[in-house]
């Protein structure tokens, strides 16, 4: 194993060191335009070294395991310039039990993926023969090991499974894309659910309605809520808070949203897309309340950012492939409300139901702004869902919207690392073509 050798080498030169090794295999089965197109096998592995030398942090990473001395030398070179260390690597600690490994993913046969994809496409084509479907079904296996000079040495085996179906329909000269799917650390057993949603989306979108222009109630489905929650995710990122770039700086303990809003980061959910027993620095995972009844409770930190801010890590050090740890959310969980979705709709005299958007994250996210094209959305009138609206944008400020809530659905849905109910907001700006 390269970990022991790297740690031994690094500890000779540095005051403290941390080594991370990761090895993954993913096997996507890919259908395009209704037919099986590609089967992939992707093997990746990388080692990275983070050192503290003369009070400064250095980092280097590689996929080439043949020269550990060079990797350590690069990390040491980086430490000549690196940020002043405000962290100490953690020692061993008891880790919570979090399910991140599903044997059913390991034994899932690629041939089964091919069958599932064919079945999904056949189901859509029975209903709409003029549709072109793409399907990706993928299993992922990962092994990682994290060790440091404080005696921490944790190994982890994890799995992930992803299925995603999209359909393109060109109808009366217009285009319709609909996409549905799920990613989880466990095998997804009910792909049919997503196929059925694709078919019902296409059906619902067959008629078109003129969107209202002005300020109207908008019901964001759980799937569309990702747009808004990701903006809040950015605002509670400890790194942005430390830089003073978050609109939530200095507002801990303040009411920043409607009292019905309770939001947490939680890496300890079994089989959650962002779940881990410990974070990328070996800090044990734990749930962190972000908004409690609308009151801002915490920002998300890793060790270094927390050190700079004179506070404690929340166990949110997230590592990209071969990248240094950075604070980020794991799974974001918005608590369910009291309202059945049907009641939320019934309450809308005139407004929109938004299920998918184009252009998320491209506005001034730092200020909480969004301005997106409604990719898939419907006119709601007299409490009834009417036809699809096109050529229409919704815009606003997330922090203002979260103080103008009409109602919150009583059912949570999981969309990747976001768990949320549908939420209906008041007076959302809608711009539309004439």
């Amino acid at each position, binding site marked *: 194993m390269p970990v022991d050798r790297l740690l031994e080498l690094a500890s000779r030169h540095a005051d403290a060191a941390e080594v991370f090794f990761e090895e993954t295999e993913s096997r996507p089965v890919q259908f395009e335009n209704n037919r099986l197109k590609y089967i992939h096998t992707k093997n990746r592995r990388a080692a990275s070294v983070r050192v503290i030398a003369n009070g400064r942090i250095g*980092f280097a990473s590689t996929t080439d395991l043949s020269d550990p001395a060079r990797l350590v030398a690069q990390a040491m070179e980086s430490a000549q310039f690196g940020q002043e260390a405000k962290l100490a690597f953690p020692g061993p600690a008891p880790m919570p039990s979090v399910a991140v490994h599903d044997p059913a993913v390991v034994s899932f046969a690629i041939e089964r993926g091919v069958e599932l994809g064919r079945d999904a496409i056949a189901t859509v084509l029975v209903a709409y023969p003029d549709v072109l479907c793409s399907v990706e079904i993928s299993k992922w296996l990962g092994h990682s090991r994290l060790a440091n000079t404080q005696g921490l040495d944790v190994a982890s085996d994890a799995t992930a499974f992803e299925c995603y179906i999209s359909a*393109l329909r060109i109808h009366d000269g217009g285009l319709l894309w609909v996409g549905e799917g799920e990613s989880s650390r466990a095998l997804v057993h009910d792909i049919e659910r997503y196929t059925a949603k694709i078919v019902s989306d296409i059906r619902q979108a067959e008629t078109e309605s003129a969107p209202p222009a002005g300020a109207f109630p908008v019901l964001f489905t759980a799937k569309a809520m990702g747009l808004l929650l990701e903006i809040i995710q950015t605002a509670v990122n400890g790194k942005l808070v430390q830089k003073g770039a978050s609109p939530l700086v200095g507002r801990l303990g303040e009411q920043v949203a409607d009292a019905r809003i309770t939001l947490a980061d939680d890496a300890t959910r079994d089989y959650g897309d962002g779940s881990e027993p410990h974070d990328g620095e070996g800090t044990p995972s734990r749930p962190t309340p972000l908004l409690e009844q609308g009151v801002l409770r915490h920002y998300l930190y890793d060790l270094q950012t927390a050190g700079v801010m004179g506070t404690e890590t929340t166990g949110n050090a997230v590592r990209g492939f071969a990248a240094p740890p950075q604070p980020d959310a794991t799974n974001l969980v918005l608590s369910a409300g009291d309202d059945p979705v049907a009641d939320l709709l019934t309450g809308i005299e005139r407004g929109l139901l938004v299920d998918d958007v184009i252009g998320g994250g491209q506005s001034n996210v730092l200020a909480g702004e969004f301005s997106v094209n409604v990719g898939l959305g419907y006119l709601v009138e007299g409490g009834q869902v009417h036809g699809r609206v096109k050529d229409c944008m919704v815009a606003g400020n997330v922090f203002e919207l979260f103080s103008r809530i009409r109602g919150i659905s009583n059912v949570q849905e999981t969309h990747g690392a976001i768990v949320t109910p549908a939420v209906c907001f008041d007076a959302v700006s809608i711009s539309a073509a004439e």
Partner: protein
Amino acid sequence: MDASLQNALAQARADYAEIHLERRATTQIAYVGKELEDISQFSSVAGSVRALVKGGWGFVSFHSLDDLPHRVRMACEQAAMVGQTESHLAPVPPAVARVVQATVATDPRQVPLADKEALARRYNQRILAHDHVQTSSVRYRDAAVQSTFVSTEGAEVEQEAVFCGMAVAAIARDGANVQRAFKQVGDLRGYPICEGLDDECDRVVERAVALLAAEPVQGGHYTVIANPVLAGVFAHEAFGHLSEADFVYENPQLAEIMQLGKRFGPDPLSIVDDPTLDGMAGSYRYDSEGTPARPTALIKDGILTSRLHSRETAARMGEEPTGNARAITCEYPPIVRMSNTYIEPRDWEFGDLVADTGDGLYACGSIGGQTDMEMFTFSAEEAFLIKDGRIADRVREVVLTGNVFETLANIDAIGNDLEFLGGLGGCGKEGQFPLRVSTGAPHIRIRNCLVGGR
């Protein structure tokens, strides 16, 4: 060329197979606010095998280069599980080439890490020195890539590309009002493009601070003058992706919409994709399938003239391969991508264009863009109202959206000031991000463009 690659391919039970190997060395530096957040080096070796059997593809990628014959076997087996019809690849004479893509000026690999750090620090301090600046971001990246490609058809291509770039941003804040402005450079011309950006740092600060006082734009329809950066992103997002043949070749309805010879815009509108331009972010000599790069006229004088192809899409559509099959790294299969995509310049002077416009919106820079092939959105970094033929008040939160075809037809004036934009970002498609590309355009005017707002 290493004979073991051809030997491994000799065992391939496939209609076609290829091996890619890649060595990559990257240096990254990132200042955010006062702190140096990242100064790191990443090196990698990676390889992949792609095999085609009866029209089906198998793809295997790896970081351990041991046992290539086993990887070739796996790729062929996977392809055999997929393939059920016939393989189609447009013929390309097998290239045998060793191309060293020399940077025209200083090679960033020859610049000491200390110098790169000092340069980034200088820009960062310059930005932070201004009042009203809450925080900053200064990012530097260079990446040297040596790639080797061999195929069962006998192609052998070795290429090298050395990318280098810098992005500087200022974030100004007044209470909950947070505004950001940025500038980036990045291409294959070498380290000097990152030097001497001090004035750009000042301009970025001025823009961010000025945005604090700007009012959000009122939503509605505007006559929009897009500056070269934004117009280039528009050409890439709104039109360029539609010209990628993999969206069209198995989709008869889209193929009908994208029929060559159809009018797509006014007479003065010509859009070109050209990977052969010297030292640009999207430049290369051979694509990831070993097809020689060449310029492709996508729209000529308003008429759809050709589209971008891989060997497979060209064969399936009975058109010429254009050398646009690209992968972000050899760990991904090549797919149809743009390179340097630009709107050709025409006659309008910028000043005349503004004066001629009466009332409208002058939209500059781009935070990003997205398209679903019919509707597009893109966000301007800064914008001004145009009143009575003059540039007037600054506005913010300008996101343009529209129907691609209608908007192309609504372009009614094209400037004489073509500019290209590279940078640290790049294009994303099917999970492959960022691919180095550049976009280019002069100022253009679009009538009746929908702008989101409150």
